[in-house]
């Protein structure tokens, strides 16, 4: 990648990183970058998730037809596979993922279990019913109830919807959006690089850092809230989900051409070290801390919360490097703000 950018480098050698970023970033071959992201990362992630969701839906239909220990076991396995595949696609909600409201409908937790089980009929399209569907609802119905067989029709319904939605998002990419995405190679706020990076950071900050770690660890409340962790009913999955998500984030960041070598091309340093290496080290240290935690984050919070807070701090250190330093180097503005509480 470095060889592609002699002009950009010359421009940057004699100045502060803030002074000429526009020249540098427009010199970067954004079309190549976008093609790589779309064809090698994003579309394959949607294909994987769509396939896993279809397999989960098929297993749920089997279970609904013939509820046995064996068919339940197969469904629970497919659930784990689909949930892991979800983590790998969740950073990529730019475009079809957003229009389908895929993340909201696939992974909003905690589930309102009372409403989920009390309602005869659920209109899944209604925004107010976002919290009675998706993988968290399946987590409850498969692992949190006395007899999942009593809920097998609803399980099949929800698994079917996840499969439908993932299929819609995938075909959105395949039927036109991929080309629009690659063609929108400018540097405006609505062009693909800006939007992809913003959506990635939003995911990192809200879903990875806050949703999986900070919120259950009580960073945003007066007390720890273990009941707000991911996959609480399964009881041994949330660490794997987190690690899968973190690895997906790191893979996107390091993939070439990608953000890390983009930074290297610009020779961005912080405190005498390449910024790209500092950010990568942040991913590695978060992974190391998380690896030592309980398989179930809710259990970890209940037993000893301090390591969860350390994990949060490690993730937070990278928020600053990504959201301030990286965005500044790439001349990208943050397009989201803290959500209102009201």
């Amino acid at each position, binding site marked *: 990648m470095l060889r592609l950018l002699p002009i950009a480098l010359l421009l940057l050698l004699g100045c502060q990183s803030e002074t000429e970023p526009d020249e540098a970033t427009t010199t970067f071959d954004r079309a190549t970058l976008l093609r790589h992201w779309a064809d090698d990362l994003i579309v394959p992630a949607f294909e994987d998730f769509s396939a896993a969701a279809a397999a989960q839906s098929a297993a749920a239909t089997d279970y609904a037809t013939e509820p046995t220990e064996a068919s339940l076991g197969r469904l629970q396995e497919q659930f784990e596979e689909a949930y892991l595949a979800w983590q790998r696609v969740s950073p990529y909600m730019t*475009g079809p993922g*957003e*229009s389908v*409201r895929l993340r*909201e409908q696939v992974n*909003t937790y905690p589930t309102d279990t009372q409403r989920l089980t009390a309602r005869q009929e659920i*209109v899944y*399209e*209604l*925004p*107010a019913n*976002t*919290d009675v569907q998706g993988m968290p609802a399946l987590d409850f119905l498969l692992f949190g109830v006395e007899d999942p067989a009593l809920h097998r029709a609803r399980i099949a319904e929800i698994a079917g919807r996840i499969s439908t939605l993932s299929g819609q998002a995938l075909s959105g990419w395949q039927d036109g959006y991929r080309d629009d995405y690659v063609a929108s190679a400018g540097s405006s*706020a*609505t062009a693909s690089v800006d*939007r992809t990076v913003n959506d990635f950071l939003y995911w990192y900050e809200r879903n990875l850092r806050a949703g999986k770690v900070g919120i259950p660890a009580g960073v945003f409340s007066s007390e720890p809230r273990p009941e707000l962790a991911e996959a609480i009913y399964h009881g041994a999955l949330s660490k794997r989900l987190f690690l899968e998500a973190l690895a997906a984030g790191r893979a996107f960041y390091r993939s070439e051409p990608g953000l890390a070598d983009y930074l290297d091309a610009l020779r961005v340093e912080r405190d005498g070290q390449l910024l790209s290496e500092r950010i990568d080290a942040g991913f590695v240290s978060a992974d190391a801390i998380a690896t030592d935690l309980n398989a179930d984050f809710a259990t970890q919070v209940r037993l000893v919360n301090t390591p969860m807070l350390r994990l949060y701090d490690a993730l937070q250190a990278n928020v600053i490097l990504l959201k301030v330093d990286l965005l500044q180097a790439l001349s990208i503005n943050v*397009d989201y*703000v803290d*959500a*209102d509480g*009201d």
Partner: protein
Amino acid sequence: MTRLLPLFALCVLFFTACEEDEPITAYNVPETYTFSRNGASTVSFPGQTERILMSEELVGAFLDPQNSEAQLDDMFRNEGPNGEDVSPYADPALNASTKSVRGKVAASRDYFFADATTSAAVRADFDGWIEAQVNEVFPRWEALAAAGVPGQVADGSRARYVNAQGLEYNQAFAKSLIGGLMLDQTLNNYLSPAVLDEADNRQTNDAGTPADGAVYTTMEHKWDEAYGYVFGAAADPADPLATLGDDDSFLNEYLDRVNDDPDYAGIAAEVYEAFRTGRAAIVAGDYATRDAQADRIKERLSRVPAVRAIFYLMRGADAIETGSSPTAAFHALSEAYGFVYALQFTHDPATGAPYLDREEALQIQARLLGDGAHGLWDLTPATIRAQAATIADSFTLTLAQAAE
């Protein structure tokens, strides 16, 4: 004190040039909002705290479709249609109260004493939002909204409830109330010289004569009532900045939001300091300082709805451009719509009038709904940004600073 008066006059004349300086006072301004006479606290504003709490319950009740229009009206008025006593609140203390939210909407001395017509029009606006929520939105509570059809829209992982134009009446009502109740009562009533100096208030205050059955003088109490609309729901009202923003969903919360914008950092501390200084000035009988501090508060608090209106408008414009559906902008635009309404209750101390009057505010609101047949569904970023620029000009704010 007399030797200082010319200095004071100078300071008032060149107020903008002096405002960074410590206030010139020959008396102590306490660190917290704590004032006493003969060992007993003279600070009192229970009526303001009650109205804030009633407003909280009322705004919350907009989101329960089981409520009838009559129930919401009871909460707004704290009386029945024939003036009978009602108990519409969850909090028994509020049911026991005789205060009313509606009775103090558009009820200030400066703006509405001789304008019952406009006062009635404002109250009719609020009544209308209640009526419309119940009759338009509640019946469509479990249905998706579309252009021209009320119902739910998605805002992230949650639902918002909008009318046929995409507007959330609960947001319109709540943010308008920040203007129609909190700002109007604070800026245009209790901080008004016409109220502070009414009847023999100066003589009784100079003599330290308490109001009937109270520890405070009438003038002290009027000032405290202004304070109560801003800080009356604070966990510790004497030291409100510690919990600013967490204490209510109205002026307190949005003063905090504006204060969080680095371009306006310190505005909350300035307002708090001006309240303490003005109150100390009343105790000392220094009415020039009192009025100078009142003007400071009027100017600062007037910025709150203006900055928030611009902020939400610009955010709405961005959301239309980057979102996959116009509905992504509806929540921000609904907040903006309410804050725009609130602008008619602001108070420019230089003119004694709002920075942007009722007619202009209603015109901006009409433009926000006027790009097509379906209001916010058809609204363009260009129209939104033009309205934000109009507000910024009226308040001499910088668009970019307010938008952050």
